[in-house]
Every structure is written in structure tokens, then in C-alpha cells.
């Protein structure tokens, strides 16, 4: 085994990280160590995007440019990438096209969010398709601006992001790719010593050995939550095992019947596969955090973290997903629904990790709907989220799997509501209402800062009625303020 330091590309040079604390964030490294102060800290929790930087990396032989929140990304997680910040992108002759468009359209006022916005647009600039107002809005969902009202920023995005990148990063892509390819050396990387470390094993063997020796180590996937444990809860994390370099956990296996995600597949990578399962699932993923969060947050991390809301969990429970867990040589597979035991308690032993999630695709007689209710449409945590999967024989409901997030201590199925549906005609409005009424037997939601228990229940019942009415044939243009995006790949 060869162990090397955490290593990344920065301004044309390779950086070996040898003396940083394992929990150092990328933002602190940039601002305090490198004194590159163009990147700002706005919230230190990955919600405002002022700290957005771009990580360029090789994926399937292609360069991809992804925006990330540097405030909650640990330094070790940039291993193998090129770190690009707002100071780096101006061209020799002047501003980068996205910077020039921002100036032209008066896209900055106080300027504090601007570096992050510029970097989100830089990432958008490097995508294949030209931006329109909708895709620009999506690209900016993780960047809060309190001054402009966004219109000029969206104008700048649409003008500059043409889908034909022609900046110096595009021009030197081949040589950058070569450097990054060399960094993808299959070696295990390590920062620190045996007691205090950020370990980045490349294989499951070493991962297993580390977890055997240090079962108390924090297993890190995307850090979109762990980053807050550090910045906000001030948890003194000293031993961190990052799964992001383990090749076996990064795979996506797409078969006619199912799609299987390795635990560290990011939401960004999973999105098109889930969208192909059902357009509601695609929209759910598009509203999952922001581009920045989706670029680092992982499918496995979202599940293993055990949030009572979860977003992915209720949708995947309704679809009948299964979970593969590993500890040492022991592999086991359980239904995802059984993984969540109670609030913040999952069926996972110390040292055991989530390895794979298998999501069955919809059969010809299966119908799916998923609706997420939030205070703000984009980049918000669900007040409640409902997912419904029905198996139909004509109009008759043969089987029903309903799951909600935000309604209990865990994402949870709704057996009472399901029972009201099985054996009934989907066309009967009375059936929808009976199922909705049964939700009061399934859930006892809480009052909190997102909503009252009463609202949660009302909204959940409305979500269920809408899902059933739509499956029965009511067009979503009449049931939703943002109609369902019917995709050609959808089962119906």
C-alpha cells in the first residue's frame, strides 16, 4: 500500500497538504492559509453560496466543472481536483465572459455574494447547453443575493453562458486533464497521523481496516451535513474517514429493471437516472439543496445520515428501494424502509457503512407521484414530502406504497392510508379522501419552525389527494402551480 498526501491542483501547481487539521474547511484554507480572500463566508452552512468555488475534475474521461460550497467542504475532499476561485478566471486581456456580462448587466450591488455568483456562472458557462432563464435560475438556487433581485444576474447568465465555452480553461483542457488523470492514481491518501486524521482510502480493504481500528471515526461522504457539525456545533472531529476516493462506491449500474447507486454517487450524478425513473423524481432532485449541495452531497450520505425529512428517503421507500450495507467482509441487504428505526437512529452498526442503494424502475402497471412542500420553492428543506406508488389493474389498485418525510421521527410508510386504497378503484374521489383521512392514523407530526403539526397534516393529505387524483387522470396543470414535467421516458 502506498499512502500519499491529499493532493490537488491549484493555479497550475500541485499542492500537497501535509500540515492542516483534518477538519480544516476549504474556505478556511483559501482565506486564512493562502490569503485568497476573494471567496467569502456568508453563512458557513452551505446555504448562501457566497463561498462558491469550482472544482474541475475528470469524470469518464471528460472535464467537468462543478460549483461547491467551500465553507462546508473539507480540504481533503478536493483531492484529485483543480480548485478554481474567483480570482483565477479573468482572461489575460480582461474579464472572463461571465464577469464581463455581470458588469454589463449591473449584476452586482454590494458585491459580497458576487464572487460566489460568478463562480456558479463559471460552472454554468462550462456546460454543453446554452442557459435559459429556467436553467440559470436553477444554477443560481444556491446563491443568495439580497441586493439585486436577481434579474440582472439571470440576464448575465443567459447572455454569457452559451454552451460553447471558449475561455482559457477550455483552451488548456487537454493539459489540465492530463495532470488530473495523473492524480487519479488509485493510491490511498492520508492527512495527519494515526490519532488525528483525514483518511481517504481508495479501496474497501483499507476502508474496512480503518473502521475496524477506529470504529468511532466519522464516516464522511459529501460533508453537506458534517460541515455544519464542525462550523456550527463546533464538534471536535479528529478522525475522519472520507469515502469519496473509494472506487467501488462511485458506480452507477443502470439495468432495465433497476438503477443501483454506489453510496458516494452525488445527487448531481444520480439526477438524470432518477429523472428517467419518473419526472417527479427528477424535479425532486432538482429541488434537492442547490447545485453546490448536489455536487458534493451523496445518495448514500443522505440515507445514512437518517434525517427525518430526507427527501430522497421517502421517495425511494415508495419505489421499494433496497440498501446494501457492509462491515468488514459481511454484506447484508435490507429494504430501505427498515433502515430507519426511530429519530436519528438507523439499523447500522459502528464501523458498518452504506454501500449501495438499488432503486427498482416502474413497471408498466405502476404509477408514481412525488410532491415536496416547502416555504420557498428552491433550496429549502421539506415541510412535508409525500411519495405514492400504486400498482394498478385497470382502475383497480392492486398494491400501494406510500411514504412521507417530515411527518414523523423518520421517513415512514403510511400503512393505514395504503390499506384504504388496495382493492379500490382509483377513479373514486371518495377513495382518495378516505386514504387522506387515514393519514391521521399513520402520522403524528410535530410543531416546529417550518410549520405547525396541523399544517403538516393538511398539506400531507392534500399531497396524497393530488397524487391519487393525478394518477386517476386529472391533469397536473389543474392541480399544481408548477405542473409535472412529463418526460418521454416516463412510464405512462
Amino acid at each position, binding site marked *: 500500500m502506498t499512502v500519499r498526501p491529499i493532493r490537488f491542483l491549484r493555479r497550475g501547481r500541485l499542492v500537497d497538504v501535509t500540515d492542516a487539521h483534518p477538519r480544516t474547511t476549504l474556505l478556511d484554507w483559501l*482565506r486564512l492559509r493562502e*490569503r*485568497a*480572500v*476573494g471567496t*467569502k*463566508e*456568508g*453563512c458557513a*452552512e452551505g*446555504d*448562501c453560496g457566497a463561498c462558491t468555488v469550482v472544482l474541475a475534475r475528470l469524470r469518464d474521461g471528460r472535464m467537468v466543472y462543478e460549483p461547491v460550497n467551500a465553507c462546508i467542504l473539507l480540504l481533503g475532499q478536493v483531492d484529485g481536483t483543480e480548485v478554481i476561485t*474567483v*480570482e483565477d478566471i*479573468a482572461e489575460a486581456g480582461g474579464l472572463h465572459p461571465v*464577469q464581463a456580462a*455581470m*458588469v454589463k448587466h*449591473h449584476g*452586482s450591488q*454590494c*458585491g*459580497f455574494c458576487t*464572487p460566489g455568483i*460568478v463562480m456558479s456562472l463559471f460552472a454554468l458557462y462550462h456546460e454543453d447547453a446554452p442557459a435559459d*432563464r429556467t436553467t*440559470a*435560475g*436553477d444554477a*443560481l*438556487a444556491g446563491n443568495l*443575493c*439580497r*441586493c*439585486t*433581485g*436577481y*434579474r440582472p444576474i439571470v440576464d448575465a447568465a443567459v447572455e454569457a453562458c452559451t454552451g460553447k465555452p471558449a475561455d482559457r480553461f477550455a483552451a488548456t483542457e487537454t493539459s489540465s486533464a492530463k495532470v488530473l488523470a495523473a492524480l487519479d492514481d488509485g493510491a490511498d491518501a492520508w492527512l495527519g497521523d494515526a490519532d488525528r486524521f483525514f483518511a481517504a482510502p481508495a479501496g474497501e480493504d483499507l476502508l474496512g481496516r480503518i473502521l475496524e481500528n477506529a470504529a468511532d471515526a466519522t464516516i464522511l461522504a459529501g460533508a453537506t451535513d458534517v460541515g455544519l457539525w464542525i*462550523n456550527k456545533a*463546533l464538534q471536535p472531529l479528529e478522525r475522519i474517514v472520507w469515502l469519496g476516493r473509494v472506487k467501488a462506491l462511485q458506480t452507477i449500474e443502470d439495468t432495465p429493471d433497476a438503477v443501483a447507486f454506489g453510496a458516494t454517487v452525488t445527487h448531481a450524478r444520480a439526477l438524470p437516472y432518477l429523472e428517467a425513473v419518473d419526472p417527479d423524481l427528477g424535479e425532486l432532485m432538482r429541488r434537492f439543496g442547490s447545485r453546490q449541495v448536489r455536487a458534493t452531497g451523496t445518495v448514500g450520505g443522505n440515507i445514512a445520515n437518517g434525517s427525518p425529512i430526507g427527501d430522497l428517503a421517502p421517495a425511494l421507500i415508495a419505489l421499494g428501494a433496497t440498501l446494501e450495507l457492509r462491515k468488514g467482509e459481511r454484506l447484508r441487504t435490507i429494504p430501505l424502509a427498515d433502515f430507519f428505526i426511530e429519530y436519528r437512529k438507523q439499523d447500522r452498526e459502528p464501523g458498518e457503512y452504506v454501500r449501495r442503494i438499488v432503486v427498482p424502475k416502474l413497471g408498466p402497471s405502476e404509477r408514481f407521484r412525488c410532491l415536496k*412542500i*416547502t*416555504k*420557498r*420553492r*428552491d433550496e429549502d428543506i421539506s*415541510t412535508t414530502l409525500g411519495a405514492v406508488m400504486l400498482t394498478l389493474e385497470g382502475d383497480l389498485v392492486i398494491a400501494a406504497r406510500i411514504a412521507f418525510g417530515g411527518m414523523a421521527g423518520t421517513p415512514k410508510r403510511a400503512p393505514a392510508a395504503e390499506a384504504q386504497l388496495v382493492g379500490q378503484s382509483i377513479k373514486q374521489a371518495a377513495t382518495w*379522501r378516505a386514504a387522506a383521512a387515514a393519514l391521521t392514523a399513520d402520522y403524528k407530526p410535530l410543531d*416546529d*419552525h417550518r*410549520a405547525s403539526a396541523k*399544517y403538516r397534516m*393538511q398539506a400531507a393529505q*392534500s*399531497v396524497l*389527494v*393530488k397524487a391519487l387524483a393525478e394518477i386517476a387522470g386529472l391533469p397536473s396543470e*389543474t392541480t*399544481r402551480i*408548477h405542473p409535472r414535467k412529463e418526460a418521454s421516458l416516463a412510464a405512462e
Partner: protein
Amino acid sequence: MPPSDPAAVEDAPAPRHVHKPLPHDSAAKHVQGAALYIDDIAEPEGTLHVALGLAPVARARLQELDLTAVRAAPGVVAVLTAADVPGKNDVSPAFGDDPMFVEREIFFHGQALFAVVATTRDAARRAAVLGVTKTTVLKPRVTVEEALAADATVLPDYQFGRGDPDQEIERAPRSLDGSFRIGGQEHFYLEGQVALAIPGEDGEMLVHSSTQHPTEVQHVVARVLGIPDAFVTCEVRRMGGGFGGKESQGTQWAAIAALAARITNRPCKLRLDRDDDMAMTGKRHDFRVDWRVGFDDDGRIAALDTKLLARCGYSADLSLGVVDRTMFHSDSSYFLPTVRIASKRLKTDTVSNTAFRGFGGPQGMLAMERVIDAVAWTLGRDPLDVRKLNHYGEGRDVTPYGMTVEDHDVGLAILEKLERSSDYRIRRAEIATFNARSPILRRGIALTPVKFGISFTLTQLNQSGALVHVYSDGSVHLNHGGTEMGQGLFQKVAQVAAEEFGIGLDRVRITATSTAKVPNTSPTAASSGSDLNGMAVMVAAGAIKKRMAQYAAEEWGGTPDQVEFRDDRVFVGNESVAFTDLAKRCHLARISLSEAGHYKTPKVSWNRAEGTGRPFYYFAYGAACSEVVVDTMTGEMRVERVDILHDVGRSLNPAIDIGQIEGGFVQGMGWLTTEELVYDAEGRLRTHAPSTYKIPVASDVPADFRVALHQAPNREVTIYRSKAVGEPPVMLANSVFCAVADALHSLAPGKVVPLDAPATPEAILKAVEELTGSVGF
């Protein structure tokens, strides 16, 4: 001479810099990450970092504060409490009721107990959570009702009005009453509160503070340290947003950093974490408004009786002026023949509420728009017709505080122009058709006016200063008392300076605001920045030009008043000379090329005790038409289209003004829709981070967003006949709230829609349930 009398500007040759849509002076720096904010300034060697220990309860007597573990934590250099303050332990702007550190009483959850000074920010933060308190906890008063029950106020009640509204409401053919809640708002400036204090000799202190009010920071630092103002300099080049949240709220952190610097004799920086910032700094006041109105069968209002119950938090802060401004705007744009506007400044055991863009005005105006809606609904009339019917007009032009609205025609003209350009009537009909066929989704539309009084209502604040130097190479050093928080003030004032001297903008160097250059300044607030500082710069430039012209006339003939400054040259008689050459020659001739300008707003006066006077120099007008679609099963809402027409006088910079209008509108829209401050029964703010407190994002802004300027010279003499633009656009968002209510009204025509602000999905669904008796389909 070219016009130093701005009244003459209309006849002047086409300007070179003013009225142009030029970019913000820092735009190129913003986009490259090259604009420096306080946390970006290279730290002097040995800089220490400060973090704060926060009160764990809202209302308590502090029995014991054990800081042993804090002092023993790694990296800790000093720990500071109230006992370490050499001067006064008070950071209040006026009333002496804001302790910098808790002494015996805890007033709100999150109040500063002590400060830790350590070698790194991380070490300071980790040490700051180790303090141990022993307290006697009392039940906190959190809500309007709890404060009312205890009759707890921070300032005396105040009211003004005319006539006998009780009698007139009684006599009116119709009457209505109601109660309406309006939520507060977190500023969410992207750059949180931050200060860097650098000690100098003899106890001098230089403070870099992210503040809208450097003079206030100077006063408070001097007060806390017990030294004269002259020993303290406060400097700020730019803020990463202010919105009123750095008017009085920036001082505490500057004062604590200065105290730490004094005690350690090292530079000290204090930057609040976002969650702490949201817990520790004040917000827009939330209100309950109780109202009664009398009106006739057409909807013409005879009398209004309104009671504004403001939740001020634990101290007075700026609540006197804020709630006064709510009262001043409780007429919105409507004539109220008989009226009583009463206010109560309620004291709660929560953070002290403060200035926020609009300064109380938005709450007063929204409440009045809700009254108009209620009147219209009960009469079955279109609310816009009732708005127009009650709008100020000929013979109906005196406000409840006795000031005459001299240009009410501007407001009404804007309203009517927007009614046409937005196709209001056609869309109103289309919406009715849609709603008749749509059981779940309902559309709504509303067109509401804005009339906002410009001037500080505290008359003494309506003054400004500038310091202008012309160097012997002809370049200009520009400084004034206004601060830059993104609103483009520095750019606008630089355009004025370049215009006055007739030189290129690149010859004008914008410099950081400093109490050492311009003293005794007013806060950059009340939308006054360009009006006040633009004028002070014009005065200063005028004085320098006068001396230069005198010299030029002596050298080349003609009279000084014929000398013209334009195109980088100075024209005198038949000669012309480069501005740079004239500057050099003036210096050689021992003529002063530096001037401190001073300006005070004319005409304004306000007698608060009598409730009479002219608190405002002029009004800024506007109108907005918003259309929304509401989901009556979940309460979700989408803004579909917004049309805005807004009065900026003759704009100093139309691009910057449009930015203020759009940004203000979206900020107001957030206040009234997704932004919700939730306090629990223990007085803890539960929405203290962007994960739980939701300001608008890009996709919340309607794709169909049509903004136009109503450009006509200000009837009053202002800088190049422009109008203030910072705050008024916030209230354009009242149209969004009224449109939501309009959509809900379609569920139960004739009923008053019981919708409180903000119109979150939950608030909307609650209104649906109250209107229809159920939720569902």
C-alpha cells in the same frame, strides 16, 4: 459658471456623467473578488480574534458567570465582561438602554455575556461555548399580547390625527373593523457584522467597521472606552449589504473589538457567525394593527381609527423614529378626512428591533392597503377603483400629520399609467374566468401605489458633509459622510463630482468614509444618501471652482462667473486651459484647492409634541401590479408577473436606480411571502440561519418582470433634480400580498380575507380554511 444652482440644471448643456446608466464603481472589482470587505483587509501582525458568549435564556437574573474553563481553553489571551469596561457599558444609539455585556439582568436569548479574545477565530469560538451561567429564569414576554397584558413598553404611547373618528365611523353609512398581523424581517446582509480595531498611541483607536453610521460607531467606542471622540477614528470603504441592519446594530461589535484591542494592546477582529448575527441583532418590527373604518356606499373613506402595536424587543433602539414613520405612512396614498393614528411601542424579552429599509413605513402602508381591500370586498368593488377613489387629490390633500401633499397628481398619474400599461382590466377579467373553472388553483391580481416621505423625521439628521481635494495634477480626492453598502452612492456622487469639475470619472478617486475626514455625520439611511451627500459635494466643488475661476479670470480676462468647466478643460474668455494645468497653476499661485462642503435640507420641520409640521422635503411615488397563482390545497404560491412604474425624479443613474427598484421589490416580496421569523415560547429565535429563514432566490422572481422609471424632474431642488430611491421600492411588494389576498377572495366573494403577513403556505392555507370552512378538494 456651469450650474452650481441645481435648479438651473434643466437649461444646462447635456451632462457628461449624470443621468447616465454607468456601472457601479466597484463592479469590476466585485466580479473578480478584488473588492475588499473588512474581513479581507490584510490583518496587522499579531491580530487577535474575538468571539462572544451568549445568554442561554431570554429573561433572567444572572447569579453567576463561571469563566474558568473559558480562560483555560487553548489560545485564549483574554476574557472580557462588563467589569472590564473602562467607560460606559452601553452601546445604545439614544436611550442608554443597550448594555454591551450583560450585567445582572438578561434581556434576550443570545445577548452578549462576555467576550473571548484568542489567537485564532476558531479558538475563540470554541472557548466561548465553555462559559457556565447560573440564572434565575423568569417567564419571558415574547408576543404582542404578552407585552400588552403586562403593559410593557419601551417608550411612551404616541398618536396624532384630526377630528373625531369615533363619531365619524358611527355616522358613516358603513363601517368595518379588523386586526392584522405583519411579520418582522431579518436583514440578511450577505456580509455579517464585523469590526477590526487597531490600537494607536495615547489610547487612540482606529476601527474598521461594517457600519452605515461611522459617527455613531465613533461615539459608542469613545463612550465604552471613556475617551474623547477625537481619539477614535471609524472607517468604512464598503459594506456587504446594510438595509438598516448596520445603522445602530454595527456599534456593539466595533466597541467590543475596540475594548479587546485596548486591553490586549493588539489589533482585534470580531466577526459574528451567521447564526449568532441573526440571534443578536435587531430586525424589522412586527406589528399587530387593529383598525376601524367608516365609509360610504362607493367606498369613500370617512374616517379611520388605527392602532399600531409594534413589538420593539427589549430596548428602545430606533423604535421612536421607526414607529413614527409607520404612523406617517398609515395613510398610504389615501386621504383620510377624519383619522386617529395611535401607536404603542411594546417591550418584549427579545432582541431589540431596529431600522430596516422603509423604517416602519412598509408596515403602515400595508395595513392601509388591507383596509382598502376590506372596503372594496364588502362593497363588491374592484380594489383598484376604491384605491383611486380615495387617492389624495384636489382639496383632499392634507395628511393626518398636517403636511400638504403638493404633488398628489404624480402619484395618481403613475397609478393610472400603470393601470393601462399592465392591462390591468383585461387581466382582471381573464382571471375571473380562470378562477370560475379552477377549483384548486386560483389567480389574483393587485395594483397598489407607493408614496414615501423623504427626509429624516428627526430634523437635525438632515445635514451632510463632504471633503473634496483637487491635487496639483488635477486629480480629485472625493470623500463624504455617506457610506457605500451596494446602493451605488459612491458612484452617483462621483458622477456629480466629475460633472461639476467637467473632468473624466477616472480622475475622481472615491475614498473610504472616515470620521477623520468628515465629522459629525448622519447615518446613511432614510434613502437620503445621494440627496444629502451629492449636495455637500456640489457645495464643496463649487467653492473650489469659484477660487479657480477667480484665478483664471484674473489670468486670462473675463469675469469668474463666465468661466466654464467642461471636457477636461476650463474655458475662460476666448481662452481655454486644461483642468490639470489650471490646478497646477492655482497651486503655484497659493490658492487652496481643498474644501469641506456642508448641506442642510431646506423646508423640513416637525413638531412631534403638536403632531404638526412638514417632516418630509418631498415624496417619492410608485406603483406595482402583481399577479399570482395560489394552490388552495397546500398554500403554495407563485408570482407570475410584475409590472412596476417608479418615480425617481431625473435619475442620477438609471441603471443603479432600476437596481434599487428591483432589489427593493424582491426584498419586500420576501418579507411578505417566504421570510418568517419564528420565536418559541421561551423567546428563542428558531429561524436563525438561511437553512430555516428563507429569503428569495432567483427562481422566486417572476420571469415576466417589467420595470420602468417615471422620469420627471423633482419639483423640489435636489441634486440634479433626482429623487431618493433606496427605500420606496420595498413597498411596491404590497401588490404581491394584496394579489394573494385577491386570489383567496375568489373563494368567498364579499368576505374579508383573513390573511396575515407573511403569506407563507401555512398562512395561506389557514386563510383558505377560515374562508371556506375546510381545506381540500
